[in-house]
């Protein structure tokens, strides 16, 4: 047999076609942008309108960039769903059997999925983050509260928003490969991101604050801040911690995906 060996690039090409040929992809991309930009603008409006009633401390804690990107925390849901669906629907539909007959090297198939999901999440994440930033700063500037993209730390925070959403999509893809059921995987991702912080609340104050910083959502969203706060790690440090969680989930996902029957 003198067949040309199928390549990783071809596996990626296959996944690329696959993700664009179901409706859920465009829907989750579209809703990510709408939700992040819309909620960021609304929250900015609420803050701006109530600014006069805020106390000194509240005004001091104000970070126009982090507040302006608050909507990204909801984009977490839609891009998380995109990441989960990329794997879980293959199990629920039975397509995984066909996919693995075409690309029997399991790590290659999952890696190809990760590449495609990461590229889409990065593009959508950056678009969302920049759009949310400019929209919210336009609102803040009604009271001269806004920041410019050229101000110190701002470009890092806004770009970081796109990177954070990319990691969210990847950690969700990992969860999809581990749990293999759409509802279960989405529940576990959202549970960790939105429910886990509750633990911090019930721990004694100093512990609670430290634990809170290292929990996934706080660590991941530290990259969005441009002011030091007692509640978050420094931006890149927090991002590094969250990248660590993502890597851990992906390692578990790859190990299980290689080992299990389909």
């Amino acid at each position, binding site marked *: 047999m003198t067949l040309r060996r199928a390549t990783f690039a071809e596996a990626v090409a296959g996944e690329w076609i696959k993700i664009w040929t*179901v409706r859920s992809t465009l829907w989750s991309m579209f809703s990510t942008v709408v939700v992040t930009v819309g909620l960021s603008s609304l929250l900015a409006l609420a803050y701006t309108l109530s600014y006069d009633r805020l106390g000194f401390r509240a005004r001091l804690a104000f970070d126009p960039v982090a507040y302006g990107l608050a909507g990204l925390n909801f984009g977490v849901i839609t891009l998380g769903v995109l990441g989960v669906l990329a794997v879980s629907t293959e199990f629920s539909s039975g397509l995984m059997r066909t996919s693995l007959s*075409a690309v029997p090297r399991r790590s290659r198939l999952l890696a190809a999925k990760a590449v495609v999901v990461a590229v889409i999440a990065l593009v959508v994440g950056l678009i969302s983050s920049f759009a949310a930033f400019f929209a919210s700063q336009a609102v803040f500037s009604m009271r001269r509260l806004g920041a410019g993209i050229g101000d110190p730390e701002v470009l890092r925070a806004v770009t970081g928003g796109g990177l954070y959403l990319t990691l969210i999509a990847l950690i969700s893809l990992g969860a999809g490969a581990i749990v293999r059921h759409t509802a279960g995987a989405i529940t576990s991702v959202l549970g960790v991101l939105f429910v886990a912080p509750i633990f911090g609340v019930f721990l004694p104050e100093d512990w609670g604050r430290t634990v809170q910083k290292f929990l996934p959502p706080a660590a991941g969203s530290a990259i969005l801040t441009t002011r030091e706060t007692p509640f978050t790690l420094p931006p890149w440090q927090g991002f590094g911690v969250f990248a660590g969680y993502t890597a851990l989930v992906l390692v578990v996902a790859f190990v299980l995906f290689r080992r299990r029957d389909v």
Partner: protein
Amino acid sequence: MISASGLTKVYGGKTALDHADFTVRPGVVTGFLGPNGSGKSTAMRLILNLDRATSGSVTVNGRPYRDLPAPLREVGALLEAKAWHGGRSAYNHLRFLAGTNGIPRRRVREVLDVVGLHDVAAKRAKGYSLGMGQRLGIAAALLGDPAILMFDEPVNGLDPEGILWIRRLMQSLAAEGRTVFVSSHLMSEMALTAGHLIVIGRGRILADTPMADFVPASHVRVRSPDLAALARAVAAENWRARTTADALLVYGVTPADLGDLAYRHGIRVHELSPVHPSLEEAFMRLTAESVEFHGIDG
């Protein structure tokens, strides 16, 4: 060629496949026959490396499936259960599969024509009937023009016209020199399609034989109060025969031949009947034997 040796799969304490040894060769439709739950699908999943063997091994063209350079160009498989996503059209399903193995795009249109799905190729697959879904699976199997084809219960959900079509398709693929491995629990279907047979029951390979050897030849059954004399007369004619408790089974003759012979020798005949053993009977006898064997074996 597909070769399994000592292939075993245990799912949580239940042995689905028990030290199976078999070889599937090119140029003939090999039927994989067994009741539901006998291990057919398990064996096919192990061939494709979808499930991992507990022990033993199986190779395709001498290599484990996962080491094939471009698997879809060597093996095409129609799996038992639905194996596509309902939100994607047939065209896009095949397009992504082609993409993964460097198969030219025009081949997608070709196989859609072969299976007769071109009119609905742009529609989302969730609206397909069972038969259309089956045709999509067959299109995917044919996509890479592979020399080895596996079909797990291919006639499921097909209408009579579709059944005839897949039967002819499998036979023509085998006639082209390809390896065609088809599983079924329908013995009548196997009898019409397969030239070689691998019979499986309770995870064990019970027979691996040409179809002609598996199903006993047609014969004439004759009973007579003077069976011994009749047997001598038959032997004198050089006819192949076998004696049972109360009858003589004579091969390669018609009831008329045998009746005339008895008349010439003045032997009374009490029964004279043509027997055409079916694959079904052969299968039943085989599985009955295997059950007995189990009993003796403890």
